[in-house]
């Protein structure tokens, strides 16, 4: 799409803050991205290195924040940058979470929590009750806990770690199963590792509850042309990244199982 959003802009990194030993949040000045809705993403261009998609953590007054986990060459390079450095971006792209009223439950795993923090901030004043379950490998990687305490009360924030260093020692899906047995929710939102999303989808399907899940794929064009990020008939960059339970049902043969690799062949998720 030939749009102002898809034009690449270069901008200064306004602020960088460490969220965990492996995650840093970058605050960038960009008016177009600052109008993004929760669930949408931007493509960040690290000149000379790569261009990669990131969910948006927050927007305010012409600023957009994204959280970057050090996982490969491009993100490692990003972690060496300092405020004032120049970076490119285009977007925002993709679908966003719908704003549900009533009782909502958000389930985040790892950096997948970022777009849900953005969503929770927008929903907290509008919903009857907002519950959040967040999981991580270990205490140090449990992200955005302070922000989440600000939007949900102590009782409605459940944290889990795989090694038991904070919260419950289990996978994020365990307390979820209990919650869904005990309480009714009008909407469940999730983002995180796809195997986790798949498990949550199975649980919400069993309980016949609506779900919106944000998915991740290898992306190139970001605008629905190249076909790199497809799941079933859907393009994660344009038809997603936020998908409804009805759409997930159509792609359940691939969800949490396979994706396209760099050469376009199917590889395990």
């Amino acid at each position: 799409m030939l749009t102002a959003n898809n034009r690449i802009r270069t901008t200064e990194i306004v602020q960088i803050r460490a969220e965990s030993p492996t995650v840093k949040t970058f605050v960038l000045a960009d008016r177009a991205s600052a109008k993004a809705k929760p669930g949408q993403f931007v493509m960040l261009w690290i000149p000379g290195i790569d261009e990669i998609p990131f969910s948006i953590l927050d927007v305010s007054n012409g600023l957009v924040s994204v959280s970057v986990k050090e996982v490969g060459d491009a993100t490692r390079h990003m972690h060496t940058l300092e405020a004032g450095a120049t970076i490119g971006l285009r977007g925002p792209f993709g679908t966003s979470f719908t704003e549900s009223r009533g009782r909502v439950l958000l389930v985040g795993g790892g950096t997948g929590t970022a777009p849900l923090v953005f969503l929770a901030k927008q929903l907290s004043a509008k919903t009857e009750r907002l519950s959040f379950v967040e999981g991580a490998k270990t205490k140090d990687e449990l992200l955005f806990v302070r922000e989440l305490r600000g939007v949900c009360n102590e009782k409605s924030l459940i944290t889990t770690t795989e090694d038991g260093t904070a919260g419950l020692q289990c996978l994020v899906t365990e307390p979820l199963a209990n919650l869904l047995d005990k309480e009714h929710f009008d909407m469940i939102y999730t983002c995180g590792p796809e195997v986790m999303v798949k498990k949550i989808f199975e649980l919400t399907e069993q309980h016949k509850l609506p779900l919106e899940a944000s998915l991740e794929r290898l992306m190139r064009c970001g605008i629905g042309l190249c076909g790199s990020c497809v799941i079933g008939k859907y393009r994660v960059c344009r038809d997603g990244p936020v998908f409804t339970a009805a759409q997930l049902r159509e792609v359940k043969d691939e969800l949490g199982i396979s994706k396209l690799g760099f050469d376009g062949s199917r590889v395990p998720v």
Partner: protein
Amino acid sequence: MSFAGLALENPTILASGILGYSAESLSRVAKGGAGAVVTKSIGVEPRVGYANPTVVQAESGLINAMGLPNPGIDVYSGEIRYAKTLLRVPLIVSVFGYSAEDYANVAKKAVDAGADAIELNVSCPHVKQTGAEIGQSSKFLSEVVEKVKATISKPLIVKLSPNVADIAVLAHAAVEAGADALTAVNTLKAMAIDAETTQPILSNIEGGLSGPAIKPIALRCVWDIREQFDVPIIGCGGITDWRDAVEFFLAGASAVQIGTAVGLVDVDVFRQINRGVLTYLRKKHYGSVKEIVGLAHRQ
């Protein structure tokens, strides 16, 4: 309509490179109204393509340098077979190679897997030793087309490069060597530089320009070919609405390929264009697209 031996429900075809990996994607495009679909360009071996940025927006188009990412024909044959079970429209497999033998091997395997036609990508502007190097030389082009033609019995389409002094010369070479139809044109060699960082934006530096920016050039290429031969032509380059499609028919194309507009509009751009073309034909009292093919030459 019949086009170079293919039965097409309508003259709009998905251009190669767009959503062309998975059978489900191709099927969705067909449901969006495409009369036929062309796959990503497939080679002998898998290729991962270039690092991002692989696509950058220019003033009125997109510049891409994907680097021909593809899983290789042996893996992709499975996808072709699957696509054939989903599609009700012809499946055209785009093929690239580094030698005439490569092209012939991939084309044969694609046809064996069920391809209804083969389109030779002899015009990729951003991968060395394939594509444009072959498409810019009458000698190499003839060699490749002859070899593939001798290997397969399905319709053979050659996608020409606009990055040449006289496209009619290359068109002539392709037709003489046995091409059943020509696609005109592939992307134009281009680049983008960022003023702030003083760097080229695409990781490959150079790429191919597509979209509205190249439409007048593509239209002229179709015109130039049609002036010299009566070969079936698929017009390609910046076609975004029905009026663009009609202009290509008038210049001499009997079908059109649509790529970038899938991004500009969305997957149902094919249906929108087909509706518009039919309305135009009715309003002008033409019975079919065939009646207006090359009409602009007759005045």
